[in-house]
C-alpha cells in the first residue's frame, strides 16, 4: 500500500466567502466613494456637462476664492476641528485613567453615544443660550430679569461648536480607549511601574499611551476628519457669518444657481485637503514623538503638572457628561412645555399638545428615518457578519489595508464625495429617493458596525465552534446555531449602533435625497434655526429617543431571551 502524503490546506469554500464579501464591499462602498471624488474633481475642474459647464480650467477655484469670508471660514474650520480633537483626546485620556477599572461609565456613556449629534447640539443650545437653562439658574444671583446680552451661541470663534462636538466625540474616544485597554497587558504594566514608584499620570503617559495609541489612532483620525467637516452641528452651534467651510459649501451646493456647483466642488477639494493636511499633522506628530519620546523618557524627564492637569481634565470630562445629559433633559422639558418665561427655572405650564402638533410635521420624517435606519443597519450588519465569518474561515488575521478600507468612509469628509456621488448616481440612471439615501447611510453605518462587532467576535470562546464541528456541524450551521446566538448581545449592540449612526446622518440624506427625503435629523436641523423651541424640542427629542430606545431594546432583548441561561448573562 502506498503512503498517503498530503498537505493540509483549507478547502476552496473557505476562501469563497471572503472573495464575495470583499467584492461586495468594493462595489458598494469603495466604488461609490471613488466615483464621488472623481465627479467632484471633474466639477472642480469646470467640467459638468449636465449643467452646461464645459469650460475646463481653474475658473471654479477663482470663483471659490472670490467668495467673501472664505479664508476665515477655512481657518475657523481648521481651528474648531483641531481643538475639538485635542480636547476630546485629553478628556477621554483623563477619564480613561480614572474610570478604566469601573463599570458605571459605560452605562452613563450609552445614551450620550446613542443620541444623534444634532439633537445633542440643539439641547446644548437650549442649555447655554442667553435665555437657556444655565442663564436661568444664574439669573437670581446675577439679578437678570431678561436674557443677558452675551453671544454664547454661534460665536465667531466657534467655541460653542467646539463644546458641542467635544461633548459627543470625547465619549466615543473614551469608549474606544476602554475597549483597546483590554487588548494590552494593562494590570501587569501598571503593577510593575507602580513598584518603581513612578507617579500614576507619568506611567500612563510613558508606558500605557504608547501601547494604546496604535489601537486608537484610526478612531482619533475619524474624530479629526468629522470635526473638520461636520455640517449639522456647525449649522446649529457654529459661527454664523462666515460659517465654517463645510456649512458654507453645503449652502453653495444648495444654491438655486446651478453654476455655483462648480465653486462648491472646488471647495470640497479644499475641505479634503484640510482633512488630509490635519491627518498628516497627526502622523507627523506621531513620528516626532516616536523619535524623541523614548530618549526624553529615558533621561528621567517628567511633564511638570501632569498629575494636576489630568485630574482637572477628568473633572471637566465628568462635567461634560453631566452637561450632555442635561442637554438631553432640557430637550425633553421643552417638548412638554406650554409656557416658560425667562428667569423661571422650570416651565409654568406643561402640555402634550406640541407632541400632537409635531406629529403632523414629523410623522412622515419619522417613518422615513425608521425605514432608512432599519434597512441600512440590517445591510451593514449582514455585511459585517459575512466579513467576520469570512475572516474566520480564511483563518488569517485582518490585513492593515482591509482595516483602512473599513475606516475609509469615516476618514474622508462627507462633503468631498457625497454630491459627486449624487451626480454619479444620476449619471448611472439610479433613481434619487429613499433607496439611494439608504445606500448612502449604509456606507457610513458599516464601519461603525464593524468596529462594534470585531472585538467581541474575536473574543468568542474558540472551543464552542470546535465542539460543534466535532458533532458534525458544518460552517453555516455553526454560524447560525452557535456563533450568532452566543454573540447575540454584541450583535444587537452593533445593530443599535448602526441605527443610531443612520438616524444621525444629515448630509447623505440632504444630498442623495436631493432635498426631497426628509428625516428627523434634516427636520430638526431646519427647525433649529429660530423656530418655536417647543416644536424643535419635540422633534429633537424624538430624534434622540429613537436610538436610545433601540439601545434599550438591545440591552433588554438578551435578558429576556436568556433569562434561564446563566452563562449568557453574567458579564457578557
Amino acid at each position: 500500500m502506498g503512503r498517503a502524503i498530503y498537505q493540509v490546506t483549507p478547502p476552496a469554500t473557505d476562501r469563497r466567502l471572503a472573495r464575495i464579501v470583499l467584492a461586495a464591499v468594493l462595489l458598494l462602498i469603495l466604488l461609490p466613494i471613488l466615483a464621488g471624488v472623481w465627479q467632484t474633481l471633474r466639477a472642480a475642474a469646470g467640467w459638468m456637462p449636465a449643467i452646461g459647464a464645459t469650460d475646463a480650467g481653474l475658473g471654479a477655484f477663482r470663483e471659490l476664492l472670490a467668495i467673501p469670508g472664505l479664508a476665515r471660514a477655512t481657518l475657523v474650520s481648521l481651528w474648531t476641528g483641531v481643538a475639538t480633537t485635542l480636547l476630546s483626546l485629553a478628556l477621554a485620556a483623563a477619564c480613561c485613567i480614572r474610570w478604566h477599572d469601573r463599570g458605571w461609565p459605560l452605562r452613563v456613556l450609552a445614551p450620550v453615544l446613542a443620541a444623534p449629534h444634532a439633537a445633542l447640539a440643539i439641547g446644548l443650545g437650549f442649555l447655554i443660550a442667553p435665555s437657556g437653562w444655565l442663564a436661568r439658574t444664574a439669573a437670581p444671583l446675577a439679578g437678570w430679569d431678561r436674557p443677558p446680552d452675551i453671544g454664547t451661541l454661534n460665536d465667531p470663534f466657534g467655541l460653542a461648536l467646539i463644546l458641542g462636538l467635544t461633548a459627543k466625540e470625547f465619549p466615543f474616544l473614551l469608549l474606544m480607549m476602554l475597549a483597546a485597554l483590554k487588548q494590552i497587558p494593562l494590570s501587569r504594566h501598571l503593577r510593575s511601574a507602580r513598584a518603581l514608584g513612578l507617579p500614576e499620570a507619568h506611567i500612563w503617559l510613558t508606558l500605557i499611551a504608547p501601547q494604546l495609541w496604535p489601537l486608537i489612532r484610526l478612531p482619533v483620525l475619524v474624530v479629526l476628519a468629522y470635526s473638520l467637516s461636520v455640517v449639522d452641528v456647525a449649522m446649529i452651534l457654529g459661527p454664523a457669518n462666515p460659517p465654517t467651510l463645510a456649512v458654507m459649501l453645503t449652502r453653495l451646493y444648495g444654491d438655486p444657481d446651478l453654476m455655483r456647483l462648480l465653486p462648491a466642488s472646488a471647495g470640497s477639494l479644499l475641505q479634503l485637503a484640510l482633512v488630509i493636511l490635519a491627518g498628516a499633522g497627526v502622523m507627523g506628530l506621531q513620528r516626532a514623538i516616536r523619535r524623541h519620546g523614548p530618549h526624553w523618557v529615558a533621561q528621567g524627564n517628567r511633564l511638570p503638572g501632569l498629575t494636576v492637569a489630568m485630574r482637572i481634565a477628568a473633572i471637566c470630562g465628568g462635567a461634560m457628561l453631566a452637561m450632555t445629559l442635561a442637554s438631553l433633559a432640557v430637550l425633553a422639558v421643552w417638548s412638554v412645555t406650554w409656557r416658560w418665561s425667562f428667569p423661571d427655572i422650570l416651565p409654568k405650564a406643561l402640555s402634550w399638545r406640541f407632541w400632537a402638533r409635531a406629529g403632523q410635521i414629523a410623522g412622515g420624517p419619522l417613518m422615513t428615518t425608521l425605514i432608512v435606519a432599519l434597512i441600512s443597519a440590517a445591510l451593514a450588519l449582514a455585511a459585517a457578519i459575512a466579513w467576520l465569518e469570512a475572516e474566520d474561515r480564511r483563518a488569517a488575521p485582518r490585513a492593515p489595508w482591509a482595516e483602512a478600507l473599513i475606516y475609509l468612509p469615516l476618514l474622508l469628509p462627507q462633503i468631498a464625495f457625497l454630491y459627486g456621488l449624487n451626480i454619479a448616481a444620476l449619471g448611472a440612471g439610479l433613481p434619487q429617493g429613499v433607496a439611494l439615501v439608504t445606500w448612502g447611510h449604509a456606507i457610513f453605518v458599516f464601519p461603525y458596525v464593524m468596529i462594534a462587532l470585531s472585538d467581541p467576535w474575536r473574543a468568542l470562546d474558540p472551543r464552542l465552534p470546535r465542539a460543534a464541528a466535532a458533532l458534525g456541524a458544518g460552517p453555516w450551521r455553526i454560524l447560525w446555531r452557535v456563533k450568532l446566538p452566543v454573540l447575540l448581545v454584541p450583535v444587537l449592540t452593533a445593530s443599535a449602533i448602526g441605527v443610531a449612526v443612520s438616524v444621525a446622518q444629515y448630509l447623505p440624506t440632504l444630498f442623495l435625497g436631493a432635498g426631497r427625503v426628509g428625516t428627523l435629523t434634516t427636520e430638526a436641523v431646519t427647525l433649529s434655526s429660530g423656530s418655536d423651541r417647543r416644536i424643535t424640542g419635540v422633534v429633537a427629542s424624538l430624534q434622540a429617543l429613537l436610538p436610545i430606545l433601540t439601545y434599550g431594546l438591545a440591552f433588554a432583548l438578551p435578558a429576556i431571551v436568556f433569562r434561564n441561561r446563566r452563562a449568557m448573562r453574567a458579564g457578557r
Partner: protein
Amino acid sequence: MLELRRLQIRHAKASPLFAPLDLRIDPGQVGIVMGPSGVGKSTLLDAIGGHLARDFTVDGDILLDGSHLAGQSPQARRIGVIFQDPVLFPHLSVGQNLSFGIPRAIRNRRDLVEKALSDAGMAGMSDRDPATLSGGQMARVALMRGLLARPRALLLDEPFSKLDATLRSDIRAFTFAHVAKAGIPALLVTHDPQDADAARGPKVLLGA
C-alpha cells in the same frame, strides 16, 4: 476499526513531532496514547478528526473501517471529539445540547435525548440550563452529546483530567462502558497512568 499506519505529523518544515506511529483499535475498545505534554498528542487527534490547522503535513495512513480518511472534511469523517472541558453550548438547554449533533435523518430525537439523560442518571433534566449542572453531570452530558451524533469513532482529549479523583474514576467507567455499548473505536490521549490501567485497548507511549 480505527487504524494508524506509520503516522507522522510535521509542522511546516520542522522535523516530525513523534516517531512513526502504528495503532489498531477494535470497535468498542479504548486505545491509549500517553506522553509528556507538548509531544503532539492533541495534534494527533486533530489529524485524525480532520481539524488540523494549515501548514501541517501528515505522513502515513489513517484508516477507519478500512477506508482512508486523507483529504476528507471533518463532517465527512464523522469522528466525535470529547474535550478536556465539557464545552456545553451556553445558549441551549441540556436537551437541546444533546440533540444538537443527532443526524437530521433520525426521527425520534426526543426519545433519544430522554434515553441518554436517563442513562446518565439525569432523567427529566432536559430543560435545565447547562450552567446549573454539576461538574460530573456536565461531563456526562458532553459524552452523551458526542455519542448521540452517531460518530464512527470517538477521540477523547484528556476528558477526565480536570475532574477530582472520585469523580474521575466514576466518569471514566461511564465513558468506557458507553464506548463499548456504542461499538465504536475510541482513542484516549492522557498522561494519567490510571486511565491506561482502566482501558482494555492497545497502549502507545508517544515520544520524539
